[in-house]
């Protein structure tokens, strides 16, 4: 009897080819995507956009930049300071704050001899991407230890020279020999590198909105919001399939509204339901974590409406494409997981391999998260958010149109 039950279950799956494909093709596909997404968190395949400004313009700093360019996973953009612009600090901070760079390196003083400043290298990061700052700082420290082991000694020598008077020619010659020897030993791997912490100063930027948030709240409020928008919209849209099989859709199709009313009504409800969900998440973020929800309410509302419309119509399109509940459930789970993983709802996209980061722009998650973080963290305005809104809005419209076309096809079937 158990075998009979097994056989019945198997035949049910085998004859629902759509569900069969979804059940066996999607899991390995999902594994591949997840493996790629989460491998970034180990540092392998990480692709960070790094902005760099060299204010010291010394031989040492040029050597350092050449070395940084060889670091795997760093996409380096060196700022041109030839125009005599001294405010490299501001420029770099702006790039990081706007999200154009994940972190920045500012070589603000001569590395070996300028000991007046606290540290000659400043690594600038955004607290919403604290991990990026830590990674850059760590990689830079490693680089300095490996390739510039005599740097600390050279700085100490300069300090002694200032405090205790100039060295004699013999002392100077001996020091030069020692430094050269250290360089040579470092090259052969024999030297024990000295700590170079004092050479690097980490600087964490806070949000532009002045709210005491480490950036994680605005990030994860958006990330969780779009994730659950997709989840609940998919669940709601599956009722279309239930209503088809129960005859309700047939009844409604015979009425004055026709197919369009059924699909549009459902999509609109899911949109409104999503809006309430997002409101609850951000209300909590305002109440508990103090994000400036009311101060940015207009911008937030536009993003929330467009993001929930996007999720609603994507869900309606998925349900319209599926013939059975089983197909729709598997497809919905797959879609939500994939979009959320690639789009940054599960892990910040800057930790993903470069190609996956680019692929993330094809998901509503990435655009919604960018827009909300832009509003609450970077203090962006209408003029900077329009692209995200346009993408979310146009894809929602496209999905709506396709859903309506498919529903008309169903009515004629």
């Amino acid at each position, binding site marked *: 009897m158990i075998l009979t039950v097994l056989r019945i279950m198997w035949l049910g799956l085998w004859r629902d080819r759509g569900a069969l494909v979804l059940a066996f093709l999607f899991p390995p596909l999902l594994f591949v995507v997840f493996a790629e997404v989460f491998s970034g968190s180990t540092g392998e395949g990480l692709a960070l956009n790094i902005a760099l400004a060299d204010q010291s313009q010394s031989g040492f700093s040029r050597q350092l930049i050449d070395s940084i360019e060889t670091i795997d996973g760093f996409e380096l953009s060196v700022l041109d300071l030839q125009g005599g612009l001294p405010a490299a600090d501001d420029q770099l901070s702006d790039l990081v704050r706007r999200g154009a760079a994940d972190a920045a390196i500012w070589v603000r003083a001569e590395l070996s001899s300028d000991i007046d400043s606290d540290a000659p290298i400043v690594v600038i990061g955004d607290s919403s991407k604290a991990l990026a700052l830590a990674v850059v700082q760590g990689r830079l420290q490693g680089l300095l230890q490996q390739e510039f082991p005599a740097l600390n000694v050279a700085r100490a020598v300069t300090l002694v020279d200032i405090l205790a008077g100039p060295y004699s020619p013999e002392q100077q010659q001996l020091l030069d020999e020692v430094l050269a020897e250290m360089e040579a030993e470092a090259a052969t791997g024999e030297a024990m590198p000295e700590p170079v912490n004092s050479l690097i100063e980490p600087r964490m930027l806070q949000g532009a909105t002045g709210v005491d948030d480490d950036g994680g709240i605005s990030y994860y409020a958006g990330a969780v919001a779009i994730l659950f928008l997709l989840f609940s919209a998919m669940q709601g849209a599956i009722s279309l399939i239930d209503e088809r*099989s*129960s*005859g*309700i859709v*047939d*009844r*409604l*199709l*015979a*009425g*004055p*509204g*026709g197919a369009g*009313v059924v699909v549009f009504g459902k999509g609109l409800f899911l949109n409104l339901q999503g809006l309430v969900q997002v409101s609850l998440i951000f209300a909590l973020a305002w109440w508990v974590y103090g994000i400036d929800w009311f101060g940015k309410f207009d911008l937030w509302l536009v993003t929330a409406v467009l993001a929930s419309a996007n999720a609603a119509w994507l869900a309606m399109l998925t349900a319209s494409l599926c013939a059975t509940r089983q197909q729709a459930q598997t497809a919905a789970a797959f879609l939500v997981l994939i979009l959320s993983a690639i789009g940054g709802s599960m892990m910040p996209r800057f930790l993903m391999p470069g190609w996956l980061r680019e692929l993330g722009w094809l998901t509503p998650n990435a655009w919604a998260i960018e827009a909300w973080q832009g509003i609450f963290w970077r203090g962006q305005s209408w003029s900077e958010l329009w692209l995200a809104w346009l993408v979310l809005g146009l894809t929602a419209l496209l999905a709506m149109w396709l859903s309506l076309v498919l529903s008309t096809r169903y*009515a*004629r079937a």
Partner: protein
Amino acid sequence: MSLSEPVVAALQDVRFDYPGQTVLAELDLELIRGECFGLLGPNGAGKSTLIKLLCGRLQPASGRILVNGQNPKLSAAARRSMGLVPQQVALYRHLSVLENLIAFAQLSGCRRSAARSAAKQTIRRCGLTSVAQRPVHELSGGWQRRANIACGVVHAPSLLVLDEPTVGVDLPARLEIEHLLAEMASNGMTILLISHDLDQVERLADRVGFLVRGAIEPIGSPAELLKRFFSGRFEWRVMLDQAPEAGVQQLLTDLGLEADPAAGPMHWLGAVHSDQQASQRMRKLEHVAVKEWRVRQPGLDALWRALFDQPGPGMNQPDVSGSSA
């Protein structure tokens, strides 16, 4: 119902094809105000396609469809004047009966206040008062079917299309639903009833049409059709105690009886013109162990078998020549 009543729905010379298959060809049908029309035909004959055409979901390849004088494909008013009761219980199961009725009234174009009063009125008319506040999923099959019909009539359509409205319902509930439908028809609602329950169709329908090879022919009242096709012949059924041996089979065949494949080898069917004729023939079966025999007017089931070429019973040769009688 009289044929002088206005036509509520008309299908004129309608043709519809699916790729590689003609489903309906030169189909003509007029539904008169207040009549109950029974549409019969085997599975796959095109009944569902006809419903979709009537509801405006499909466009015929040729011909004309009018509901209250308008093309239902183009006119929302025409569709609003129709109610559809699908074969399934097409209700929102988590809503109460009243909430379902209000919802479907609104979806049929009624404003909220009108929908509410129409729903309450329909609940009374359909005898649903005792279950009005209960969620559909808590109701028995009979109540669900009743609510299913109520949702199809809540917006007071002039044409109600019913697809197997009592399937899976026990006899008392079925009879109650039939009574309800008869009452609706007597109040002027036109009913297109699609059912495989031939007895039900015979009880309810003023006219019956058989969908055969894409056209509805024959059409007429059950009595007319039976008279036309069987012209005074009666169905003669003989039930034996056991399956007959070869010699008995030959005797039965000689008397004009044929085994009824639907009922088994002990059931034999034939046609006679009177009780007396059947009695005379039964005398020749004195030595055969007959459990029971009877003579009855042929029903739509006999006509069905005749039209759709079901093998066996002796009534499957319609006496078309006697149709003018």
